[in-house]
C-alpha cells in the first residue's frame, strides 16, 4: 500500500514529525497512525513531549518537519509546502475536537451556547438545529440540567463534561484529550472518565494524553510511550502494562501503580 493510500484510511496519520522549542527537541521523528474507531493513549513523564504531540495534531503547535493528515487531509501546510491559509486550516481543524486540561470554556456564554457556538458560526447550522444537537450532547454527558448556567457556577468535572460536549458538537473525525482529568479534584475524576469511556464504547476515534493508567488500560486499543520526544514503545494495553519491552517503561509503570486488569 502506498503512503498516501494509508493516510486516506487513517483518522490521523503522523509521519516524521519533529519539533523544537529553541534548542530543545521536543518531538523527534514521531510516527503514529490512528485508525477510525481506535483509542490511542499517549503516556510519558512530564516534558516528554506528549502534550506537544497532541497539540500538533490540530496545529495549535506548528511542527518543524513532518506531516499530519486528518482523515486523509493534510493539516497546516499543503503537500507542495505552501502554508495553509487560515480559513482552510480552520476547516481541517474542525475535523478534530479538543478537550483541554484547563477546560477553557468561554465564560461569557452559558453552557448551551458554549456548545452551539461553533456549529452555528463555523458550520453555519441554524440556531434550532444547533440547539437540538447541543441538547442531545449535553444529555449524553449528563449536563442537560445545567444548560442555562454560566461556566463559573460549575464544578471542574461539570466544566470538563461541557467541554467534551462542545468538542463533540462539531462531529469531528477524531477527539483529542489533553490530560482531561489532571486539573480535577480526585473525587471529580470519575465522572469525566465515565463520559470518555462511553465515547470509546460508541466507537469514537480518540487520542488521549493521560496519567490515569488504569483508565488507559481499560479503554485503549493502542498505548504509546513517549520519552524525550521519541516513541520508545507502542503496544496493545495488555502487552504494554504486563510485559513492557523497555526498562524505561517498566520503571515508569512501577512508579505509577500498575493497574490490575479491569
Amino acid at each position, binding site marked *: 500500500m502506498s503512503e498516501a493510500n494509508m493516510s486516506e484510511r487513517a483518522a490521523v496519520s503522523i509521519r516524521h514529525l519533529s519539533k523544537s522549542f529553541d534548542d530543545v527537541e521536543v518531538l523527534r521523528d514521531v510516527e503514529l497512525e490512528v485508525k477510525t474507531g481506535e483509542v490511542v493513549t499517549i503516556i510519558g513523564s512530564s516534558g516528554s513531549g506528549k502534550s506537544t504531540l497532541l497539540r500538533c495534531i490540530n496545529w495549535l503547535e506548528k511542527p518543524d518537519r513532518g506531516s499530519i493528515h486528518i482523515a486523509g487531509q493534510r493539516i497546516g501546510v499543503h503537500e507542495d509546502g505552501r502554508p495553509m491559509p*487560515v480559513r482552510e486550516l480552520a476547516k481541517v481543524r474542525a475535523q*478534530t475536537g479538543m478537550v*483541554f486540561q484547563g477546560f477553557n470554556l468561554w465564560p461569557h456564554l452559558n453552557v448551551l451556547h458554549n456548545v452551539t457556538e461553533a456549529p452555528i*458560526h*463555523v458550520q453555519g447550522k441554524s440556531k434550532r438545529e444547533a440547539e437540538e444537537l447541543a441538547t442531545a450532547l449535553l444529555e449524553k454527558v449528563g449536563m442537560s440540567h445545567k444548560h442555562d448556567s454560566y461556566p463559573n457556577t460549575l464544578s471542574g468535572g461539570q466544566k470538563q463534561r461541557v467541554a467534551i460536549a462542545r468538542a463533540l458538537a462539531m462531529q469531528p473525525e477524531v477527539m483529542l484529550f489533553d490530560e482531561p482529568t489532571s486539573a480535577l479534584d480526585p473525587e471529580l475524576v470519575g465522572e469525566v472518565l465515565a463520559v470518555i469511556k462511553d465515547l470509546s464504547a460508541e466507537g469514537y476515534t480518540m487520542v488521549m494524553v493521560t496519567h490515569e493508567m488504569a483508565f488507559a488500560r481499560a479503554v485503549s486499543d493502542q498505548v504509546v510511550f513517549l520519552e524525550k520526544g521519541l516513541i520508545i514503545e507502542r503496544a496493545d494495553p495488555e502487552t504494554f502494562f504486563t510485559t513492557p519491552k523497555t526498562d524505561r517503561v517498566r520503571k515508569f509503570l512501577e512508579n505509577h501503580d500498575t493497574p490490575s486488569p479491569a
Partner: protein
Amino acid sequence: MNASAWHMLLEGALTTVWISAVSIAIGVVAGLVIALIRLARIPIVDQLLVLYISVARATPLVTLALFIFLSAPDLGLDLNRSVAGILALTLNTTAFNAEIWRSAFRNFSREQSEAAMATGMTPWITFRRIMLPQMVITSLPGLVNEMSFLIKGSPAIAVIGIVDLTRVTNRISAVTYEPLPPILVAGALYMAIIGCLVWLQRLAERRANRLAM
C-alpha cells in the same frame, strides 16, 4: 432665567451630547482598530502609532482644537467648527482608548482563543465571537471612565466658537448679569449625562462577574 435662557441651555446641552457622542463612537472603534493594527507589530506603522498616541495624550484639548481649526485652511481643508471640534475630541480620546483596548488584548487568555481555534473558528470569528464580547466587558470600566473625561473636557471646543453647554452659560449671563443660575443648571445637566454613563457601567459590572472563572 427666562424661557429663552432655558432653551439656550438645552441647546447647549444637546450640542455637548451630540458632539461628544460622535467623538466617543468614533474614538472607541478607532482605538480598537489601532490596538488591532498594533498587534501585528508592522515596522514603521507601529512606531507611527506609538508617536501619535504619545503626542495625542500629551496635548491639551484646547491646543489641539485650536491647532486643527486654524491649520485646516492652510492644508486646503474647509472644516466647519463642529467637524473640527469632533476631530479634536476624537484624536484625543482615540489615543487613550487604544491603550485600554491594547491592554485588554494583552490580558486575554490564550487558552480561550485556542479553544475557539480548536473548534474550527477562523481568527476573525474567534475575535468577533469569543474575544471581543469579553474584552468589551472587561474594558468597559476604563472606556466609560475615558468617556466621562471626554464629556467633562468637551468645553475646550468652545475655543473655536462652538456653543456647548458651558459656553452657553456665558452667553446667558452676558444678558441677564446673573451667572449663577445658568452655571448651576449646566452643572446638573453634566451630572445627568455622566449619570447615564455610570448606569451603563454598573450594568457591565454585573455581567463582568460571570467572567470571573
